[in-house]
């Protein structure tokens, strides 16, 4: 037996051991969880149970249930200010992760670069690498509020047809962009003839100040963008594994080809649940209101403790600097876990620019957040007094 060299060469996450330690430990307050703490709204779960009782336990069309694609198309139209044909411009996937993988594989041509801003979600780089793309990190820092600037993109060496991967609001930094910033980025993208994969899973219901501006809604960007979204975060449906891609016909067709041979279709139970989720605007807004309160609370308190933290514009993570402690992120996370039983994710898990930072999820009840902050305060007093 021989293992694929590419897979062999792919370095495993450097902090796997730390994660195993957390998972094996009891009575830990974890701010390391990247999924909502709310249960899926019951009307969504109940609707899926009902569909199972009625016998909806079969395959669906490769592209996903026609009705779901139609509903998604209707959902997207006012938000994206453009329409996507449910017949051939929308594909239902097993979470955004699958959509990302399909997109990268479908768009992978020789010498094609994938520009990935970091700190970023952990799977972008490996997915690009496994797809045969040439992943290139664009470092972002607190100086630009962890945003890619038009100047930075303009100065990056690229070729026509390269891929620019955008994720906003961003996991782990919470960075997002307003319309003017996006228009400026779009100008550079057009000039450089890049294609954008825009992961906007935290967009609609997890943007707190102002409206989320979807990338395909910008002038000239619809044909240059593959828009990815899903149900996991906004509707607390991570385990249902339903995401989708909307984009130019030829990209969706290429992705569908891979999807039909590898996955066949997303599970029908999740798709039935997603249909009901699209009627749950009120529930999603109520969860957003709660995240928003926690966001302001945790960020204000972290800054008071001396851990500099920008106010995240979206998602549910606070990305705080621990540089004042003199520890590196892994050391800080290890010690905090051992001494105070609070779990956070070291920033280096999200790319080299995450050094000196930790990610704390506020998808955690306020009483746990308060207790965790009090323990962090105690920890800092001990180590930094």
């Amino acid at each position, binding site marked *: 037996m021989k293992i694929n060299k590419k897979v062999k060469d792919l370095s495993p996450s450097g902090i796997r051991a730390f994660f195993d330690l957390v*998972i094996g430990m009891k009575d830990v307050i974890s701010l390391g969880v990247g*999924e909502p*703490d709310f249960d899926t709204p019951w009307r969504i779960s109940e609707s899926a149970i009902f569909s199972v009782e009625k016998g909806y336990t079969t395959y669906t069309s490769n592209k996903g249930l026609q009705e779901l694609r139609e509903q998604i198309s209707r959902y997207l139209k006012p938000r994206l200010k453009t329409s996507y044909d449910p017949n051939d411009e929308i594909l239902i996937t097993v979470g955004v992760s699958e959509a990302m993988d399909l997109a990268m594989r479908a768009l992978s041509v020789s010498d094609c670069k994938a520009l990935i801003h970091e700190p970023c979600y952990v799977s972008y780089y490996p997915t690009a690498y496994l797809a045969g793309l040439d992943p290139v990190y664009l470092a972002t820092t607190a100086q630009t509020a962890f945003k890619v600037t038009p100047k930075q993109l303009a100065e990056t060496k690229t070729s026509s047809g390269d891929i620019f991967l955008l994720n906003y609001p961003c*996991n782990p930094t919470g960075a997002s962009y307003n319309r003017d910033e996006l228009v400026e980025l779009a100008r550079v993208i057009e000039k450089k003839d890049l294609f954008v994969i825009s992961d906007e899973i935290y967009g609609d219901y997890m943007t707190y100040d102002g409206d989320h501006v979807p990338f395909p809604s910008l002038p000239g960007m619809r044909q240059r963008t593959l828009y990815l979204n899903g149900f996991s975060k906004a509707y607390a449906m991570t385990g249902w594994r339903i995401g989708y891609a909307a984009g130019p016909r030829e990209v969706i067709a290429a992705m569908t080809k891979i999807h039909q041979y590898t996955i066949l279709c997303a599970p029908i139970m999740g798709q039935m649940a997603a249909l009901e989720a699209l009627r749950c605007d009120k529930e999603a807004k109520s969860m957003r209101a709660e995240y928003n309160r926690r966001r*302001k*609370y945790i960020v204000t308190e972290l800054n008071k403790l001396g851990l500099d933290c920008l106010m995240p514009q979206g998602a549910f993570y606070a990305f705080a600097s621990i540089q004042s402690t003199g520890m590196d992120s892994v050391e800080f996370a290890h010690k905090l876990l051992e001494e105070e039983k609070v779990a956070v994710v070291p920033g280096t898990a999200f790319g080299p620019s995450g050094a000196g930072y930790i990610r704390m999820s506020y998808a955690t009840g306020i009483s746990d957040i308060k207790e965790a902050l009090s323990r962090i305060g105690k920890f800092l007093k001990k180590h930094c007094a």
Partner: protein
Amino acid sequence: MTIPVVVKLDGGECFMDEILEILEKDARLTSEEIAVMTGKSTAEVEKRIKKYESEGVILKYKAVVNKEAVETDVKIVRALIEVKVIPQRNVGFDAIAKRIYSFSAVKSCYLLSGGYDLLVIVEGEDMHSVSSFVSEKLATLENVQGTVTHFLLKKYKEDGDILHKIDGDKRLSISF
């Protein structure tokens, strides 16, 4: 009568003041904490809370206690009683309702549409005391035409709170 303050958000939809929403969920949060969560000053939060208290919008602060989980020898029996009454001239149902809800055994009292008029929730130490209350105090009132008593067997959910221990966090303690 004071109408609770409503604020207009998202193009006309009316929501309750966020401070009330927060306190309804957790009345133990401090004004400072609420101020941070809402982006208001502590003074502003305190001012509003005081106003709500003085206007009777906030009546009191209390814990939601699941009495069925309390280990004690004192048992409590609850009954929901449908009461059919004759409304009185000028005062409608209010006078008879007051007559009923003023009893300390009455924990809640609602005027309803439908087949009967008042829904009264009564608590007593045992079935006998609840029955006595109904037969001696309630049914004998002049304007009460009839009562139907339903003894409560189990509470599952009350005012939005599920009254049994919910399974702990099912999520992995670390994920991306």
